[in-house]
């Protein structure tokens, strides 16, 4: 059955995550008629039927353990994960790409880590620094005004440190470090490694009267019922829906962008995922923000006589330069934290302190940096708590194992006596790393799926080796006894698989040369001026900073450009 939406919209926005939510909010605010199309269902963390925040482990029969449907635990708010029931993807030869997708209003911003880092001036011009990859067609000065507005509009805690490549912002005050973080700070100071307050989009102070102030439950990954953390749905989309300018289509999967004889978009065709019926929605402009790989997939599936290799793909670059952050991690046992005094140290989600890249310009055998995220603390017991209960006895010359009430003492003795570090680094984008349409496989709705082709280069592998050395030094300087073994060359030094850090970007990169890029610096397709990309597809390079703050700043910038172009009657 094919239905046609009655309304002709000014803008059709595909995807309600970080990029789509920001575009919806800004464009609706400018008075445009917006259709927001989301493949997943409506989601509200405050709705008792969907709430997982503040639940105790015994409210779940598996005590919060992960399942295939909730890979990050039973209480994680993501509806989606590494594998979706009806939407497969495939990997080409020698590729083990991981692809995390959310199917819900707000996309992955419901359960993301809220680490909100601006890119710095060097991050937009990496080619100038190391001669690898390409520069962005824009620089920090172009994005800075949007980061500034974003800080004030969405809210982010942090601190002004005057660092050139980790720029200052309009920060809310930071939460104080926890005890294990003080040990990390002490160790890092002794090695002259800098440490600063983390930067997260969590409201440690009131930002406006709509949203609450963080009550420190540490559970942003479950999504915040009082909207004190940033989720696209709660912070951007709900207010936009109230304005009456937005029609929200949930459970609606865009199959392709429809184009006319002039090659410009006329709308999108979609499938209702609940009943399989088809819907066509028409509009003056289309903004794709389905996440970098999904947007590439939609474009590649939008074939027409004018766009025979897929919409926006006259350069053959759609899907290429796909890249993710690198990652590696290590943990240690901290004897100083045995037999702790127990108090509530939940704090905000994740670490309160971090180390940004501190070796810029040093002579290393890899070219790009990484930052360090710190973990530990007296978290809430959930499935897995108490496993290998007294394994640290090994370091105390005592026997591991046993049974009986003495295990209770072991539990208390080692509770919270752990310090961990996770590194997140920049990789060098490669044309040869890409996603494409699998020629034979389709999803439940008959839409061709993506096939990934991705290998790390020596840069990332050498960087991972450096990460391992750094983590060992820092953990030991904090007084830690290293756990596990240090991964060597045979395991790529513990380097994560591509996609695993969930910072995939670059599939529709921006540039001024239409032969080597897909969009201009406003995310506007070179090949169809009324189609825009507002997700991380446009990234030329993914810095050693998590991508979302930049996705939103650029989406806002694209929205301003659309409004301006419409006002000038160019769209």
């Amino acid at each position, binding site marked *: 059955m094919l239905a046609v939406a009655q309304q002709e919209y000014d803008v059709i926005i595909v995807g309600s995550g970080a990029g789509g939510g920001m575009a919806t909010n800004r464009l609706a605010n400018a008075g445009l008629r917006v259709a927001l199309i989301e493949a997943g269902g409506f989601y509200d963390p405050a709705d008792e039927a969907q709430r997982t925040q503040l639940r105790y*482990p015994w409210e779940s*029969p598996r005590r919060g353990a992960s399942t295939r449907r909730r890979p990050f635990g039973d209480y994680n708010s993501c509806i989606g994960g590494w594998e979706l029931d009806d939407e497969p993807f495939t990997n080409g030869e020698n590729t083990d790409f991981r692809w995390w997708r959310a199917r819900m209003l707000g996309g992955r911003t419901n359960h993301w880590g809220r680490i909100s880092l601006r890119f710095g001036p060097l991050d937009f011009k990496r080619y100038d620094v190391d001669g690898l990859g390409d520069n962005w067609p824009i620089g920090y000065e172009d994005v800075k005004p949007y980061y500034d507005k974003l800080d004030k509009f969405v809210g982010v805690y942090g601190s002004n440190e005057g660092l050139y490549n980790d720029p200052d912002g309009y920060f809310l005050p930071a939460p104080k470090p926890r005890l294990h973080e*003080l040990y990390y700070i002490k160790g890092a100071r002794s090695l002259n490694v800098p440490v600063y307050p983390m930067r997260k989009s969590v409201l440690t102070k009131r930002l406006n009267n709509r949203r609450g102030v963080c009550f420190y439950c540490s559970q942003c990954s479950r999504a915040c019922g009082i909207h004190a953390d940033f989720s696209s749905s709660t912070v951007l989309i709900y207010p936009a829906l109230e304005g009456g300018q937005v029609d929200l289509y949930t459970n609606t999967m865009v199959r392709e962008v429809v184009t006319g004889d002039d090659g410009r978009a006329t709308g999108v065709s979609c499938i209702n995922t609940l009943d399989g019926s088809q819907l066509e929605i028409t509009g003056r402009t289309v903004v794709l923000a389905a996440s970098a790989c999904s947007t590439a997939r939609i474009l590649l599936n939008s074939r027409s006589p004018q766009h025979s290799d897929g919409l926006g793909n006259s350069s053959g670059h759609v899907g290429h330069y796909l890249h993710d952050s690198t990652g590696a991690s290590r943990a240690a046992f901290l004897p100083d934290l045995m037999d702790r005094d127990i108090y509530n140290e939940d704090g905000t989600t994740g670490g309160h302190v971090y180390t940004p890249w501190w070796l810029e310009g040093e002579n290393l055998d890899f070219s790009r940096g990484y930052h360090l995220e710190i973990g530990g603390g007296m978290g809430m017991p959930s499935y897995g708590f108490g496993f290998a209960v007294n394994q640290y006895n090994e370091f105390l010359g005592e026997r591991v194992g046993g049974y009986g009430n003495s295990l*209770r003492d072991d*539990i208390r003795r080692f509770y919270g006596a752990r310090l961990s570090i996770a590194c997140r680094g920049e990789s060098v984008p490669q044309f040869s790393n890409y996603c494409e349409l699998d020629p034979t496989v389709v999803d439940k709705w008959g839409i061709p799926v993506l096939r990934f082709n991705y290998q790390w280069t020596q840069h990332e592998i050498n960087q991972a080796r450096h990460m391992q050395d750094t983590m060992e030094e820092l953990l030991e300087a904090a007084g830690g006894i290293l756990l596990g073994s240090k991964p060597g060359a045979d395991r790529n030094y513990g380097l994560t698989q591509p996609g695993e850090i969930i910072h995939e970007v670059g599939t529709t990169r921006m540039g001024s040369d239409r032969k080597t890029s897909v969009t201009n610096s406003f995310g506007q397709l070179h090949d169809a001026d009324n189609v825009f990309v507002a997700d991380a597809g446009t990234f030329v390079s993914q810095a050693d900073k998590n991508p979302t703050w930049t996705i939103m700043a650029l989406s806002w910038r694209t929205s301003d450009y659309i409004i301006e172009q419409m006002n000038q009657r160019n769209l």
Partner: protein
Amino acid sequence: MNRRETLKSLLMSSLGAGVIASTGCAGSASPARRISWTPLPDSYSYGRTAEEKDYDARLFAESYLSEHELVTIAVLCDIILPSDHPNGGALDAGLPEFVEFMVKDRENYKLPVRGGVAWLDNHAIDNFGADFVNVSEQQRLQICDRIAWPDVQDPELQPGIRFFSFMRDLTLTGYYTTEMGFRDLGYQGNTPNVWDGVPQHVLDRHGMSYEAEWLEKCVDQSRRDVIAEWDDDMNLIT
């Protein structure tokens, strides 16, 4: 979980045929021949999708472990974390049912648990002439002493050691994720509060202090409710 709730109880008979009964009026069998535990709920409501609700309901409807296996697991969990403690133990925390649920939830747990129970019985029969639950208390503890320590090298005991470690993991996790486990640990979190740093006496105990410069960047909790404003130089002024 309330001990006064009706307990679930299985008969430990040498025929291996347990009978579910309520202990409320179970005067007939001697306590030594019965094992009882606090039952767990068999339905939950905590923000599930329709697919997840269906999946969990299917798990609850399904049975995988035999009564003999359940009894053996109950006896083992009770040894690992006994109930002779003010904060209760494994059976008070409904451990057998928790293990059963996890085994149904995770395909890769099924065989290790089934095979582990069977190994335990083989070992008990070979050494003491009856399956694990039907040898004497002292003999059971003798078996546990052999397999509770992973540093034991005896190749013959390795499957048992592995199984015991797994059951210890499940027992502790199943217990410490209940209210009584929280009490035993003294866990303080998962409740709205205002984090204002590590308590002073804890800092003192660890010889730690906050750097003054760092504290200046931190939230003044007395003004957390005052709406944030900044000057043009990115300084917070409220």
